[in-house]
C-alpha cells in the first residue's frame, strides 16, 4: 500500500474512531526505520472536534508480511495499556487496536506520539555522554518499576497466561528452544548445548511474578539528549514472568558495546543493581541472574535465526533481518560458547 493510500484510509479510520472527530486528514506520514517487527509510521493527524481544529501526533504500528518476532499485536497493545500512567514510566498512550486487516491491509494499533527524544544506538552507546549516569539511573529505575507493576487485573494478564513462579524459566526456555529448532536453517550445536545446560541447571523460582517487557534495552527507548528518557518502546514480546528475564536481557553484552564494567554500558554494576532493587522490590540473586543471562543469549539466537529465515525465504527483505541473522547471531553464539565452554573444561 502506498503511503498516500495508507494516509487516506487511516484518516477515514481515525475519524470513525476518535469520539466527535470530523474532517480528519493526514498532514504528514513517514515510515520510521528500525521497526522490523512492525511497520512503524509517524503521522500528524489533523481533525476538528467540539473544541475546534487540532493536530495530533500518532504512531501507527502495522503488521508486516513477516517480522523479527511472531507475536500478536493485542499483547503489545495490552502491555502498553498496563504500563501507561504508572509509576512515572514514560510510555505512550495506547489509542486504537484493529485486528481486522480490511481497514489498512493488515492488523495494526495506534499510540500517541511522544514528541521528544531519539533512540540511542546500542553499538554507539558512548554518544549518550555527558548524560550516561542520568540515563543509566532512569534505565534501571524504570526497569525496576516495570517489574513492580501489578500483574493481577492488568490488561496484559487478560491477554496472556500467568505461569507459576517456578515455571517461568521452563516456559520461556521451551518457547525459545522451539523457535530455534523450528526456524534455524543450519544445525545449532552451541544453542543446543546451551539449552541442555539450562535445562540441567534451573534457576530458583521467580521472587515475584511481573510484567516482563521482553525487549527492554538500549535501542528501544528514546532519550532527549539532555539526560531524560522520554519513552519506553517495543513492547511486542511482553509477557508475565520472572523479572530477572528483563534484567538479564537489558544488560546483555550486545546492547552495551561489550562494556563489562558498566551494566547496560550505562552505570557501574553495584549502582545499577541498587537502583533496580529499590524500584522493583526484588533482591539481587547472582545464581538467578547467571541463568537468565545465559538464557538471554539463547533467546537472542531464537530471534536471530527467525530473522534469518524470514529474510532467506523472501518474506521480509529488510536488511536488518540479514544483519540479525549474521552479525548478531554470530555475536551471541560466540558469547555462549565462551561462557559455557570453560564450565565443561574447555580453555581451562
Amino acid at each position, binding site marked *: 500500500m502506498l503511503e498516500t493510500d495508507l494516509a487516506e484510509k487511516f484518516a477515514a479510520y481515525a475519524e470513525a474512531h476518535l469520539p466527535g472527530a470530523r474532517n480528519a486528514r493526514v498532514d504528514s506520514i*513517514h*515510515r*520510521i*526505520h*528500525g521497526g522490523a517487527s512492525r511497520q512503524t509510521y509517524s503521522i500528524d493527524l489533523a481533525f476538528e472536534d467540539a473544541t475546534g481544529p487540532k493536530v495530533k501526533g500518532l504512531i501507527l504500528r502495522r503488521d508486516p508480511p513477516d517480522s523479527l518476532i511472531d507475536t500478536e499485536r493485542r499483547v503489545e497493545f495490552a502491555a502498553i495499556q498496563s504500563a501507561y500512567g504508572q509509576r512515572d514510566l514514560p510510555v505512550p498512550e495506547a489509542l486504537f487496536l484493529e485486528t481486522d486487516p480490511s481497514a489498512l491491509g493488515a492488523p495494526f494499533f495506534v499510540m500517541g506520539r511522544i514528541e521528544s527524544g531519539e533512540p540511542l544506538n546500542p*553499538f554507539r552507546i558512548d554518544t549518550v555522554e555527558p548524560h550516561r549516569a542520568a540515563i543509566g539511573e532512569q534505565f534501571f529505575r524504570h526497569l525496576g518499576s516495570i517489574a513492580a507493576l501489578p500483574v493481577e487485573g492488568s490488561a496484559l494478564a487478560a491477554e496472556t497466561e500467568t505461569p507459576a513462579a517456578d515455571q517461568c524459566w521452563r516456559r520461556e526456555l521451551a518457547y525459545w528452544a522451539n523457535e530455534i529448532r523450528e526456524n534455524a536453517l*543450519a*544445525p545449532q*550445536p*552451541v544453542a*543446543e*548445548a546451551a539449552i*541442555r545446560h539450562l535445562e*540441567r541447571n534451573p534457576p530458583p523460582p521467580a521472587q515475584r511474578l511481573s510484567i516482563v517487557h521482553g525487549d527492554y534495552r538500549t535501542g528501544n527507548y528514546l532519550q532527549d539528549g539532555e539526560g531524560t528518557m522520554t519513552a519506553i518502546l517495543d513492547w511486542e514480546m511482553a509477557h508475565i514472568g520472572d523479572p530477572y528475564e528483563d534484567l538479564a536481557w537489558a544488560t546483555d553484552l550486545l546492547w552495551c558495546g561489550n562494556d563489562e564494567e558498566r551494566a547496560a554500558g550505562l552505570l557501574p554494576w553495584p549502582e545499577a543493581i541498587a537502583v533496580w532493587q529499590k524500584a522493583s522490590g526484588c533482591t539481587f540473586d547472582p545464581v538467578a541472574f547467571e541463568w537468565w543471562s545465559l538464557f538471554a543469549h539463547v533467546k537472542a539466537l531464537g530471534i536471530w535465526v527467525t530473522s534469518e529465515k524470514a529474510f532467506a525465504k523472501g518474506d521480509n527483505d*529488510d*536488511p*536488518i533481518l*540479514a*544483519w540479525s541473522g*549474521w*552479525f548478531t547471531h*554470530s*555475536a551471541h*553464539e*560466540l558469547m*555462549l*560458547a*565462551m561462557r*559455557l*565452554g570453560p564450565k*565443561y*573444561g*574447555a*580453555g*581451562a
Partner: protein
Amino acid sequence: MSNIGMILDRIGRKLVTEVAPKLEGDYSGGHAAMSGLMSVMAGEAWDNAADRLVNEIAGLRGLLALGGKTVTIEESPSLKISDLTVERDALARDLIALQKSLEAREDDEAKDLNAKVWMHLMATAIARMPSPPDFPDADE
C-alpha cells in the same frame, strides 16, 4: 576485475559514505547503510569462507572419530561453499548427538572429549564472528 572481496568492500563503503547520507530522512537510507555495512563484511567473509569451512569439517570429523562414531557422511564433491556447507551441516548434526551422549556419562573419557567438543565450538564461533566495519567518514 576478479578480486570479489575488494569489489564488495568498495561497494559497501560507497553505499555507507555516499549513498546513505543522501537518503537521510528517507526509509531507504537505513536500508542503504545496512546493505553497505554487510557488503563490506561479505567481502571479508568471501575471502575466508572456504578456509573456515574446511577447518570446521576437519575438526568435526576428528571429534566424531574420537567419539568412536562411524561417519557415513561423504566428503564434499568440490570446494564450492554450498557443497562444503552441506557436508559441515551433516557433520554438525552428528556432533550434537555425540555431545548429548557425552553429557549423559560421568566418566573422565567422556568429560575430556566433551571439553574438546567445546574447544571446537569456541574456535568455530571465533572464526565465524565478522569484524564490524568502521566508517569514520560516515559521521561527518
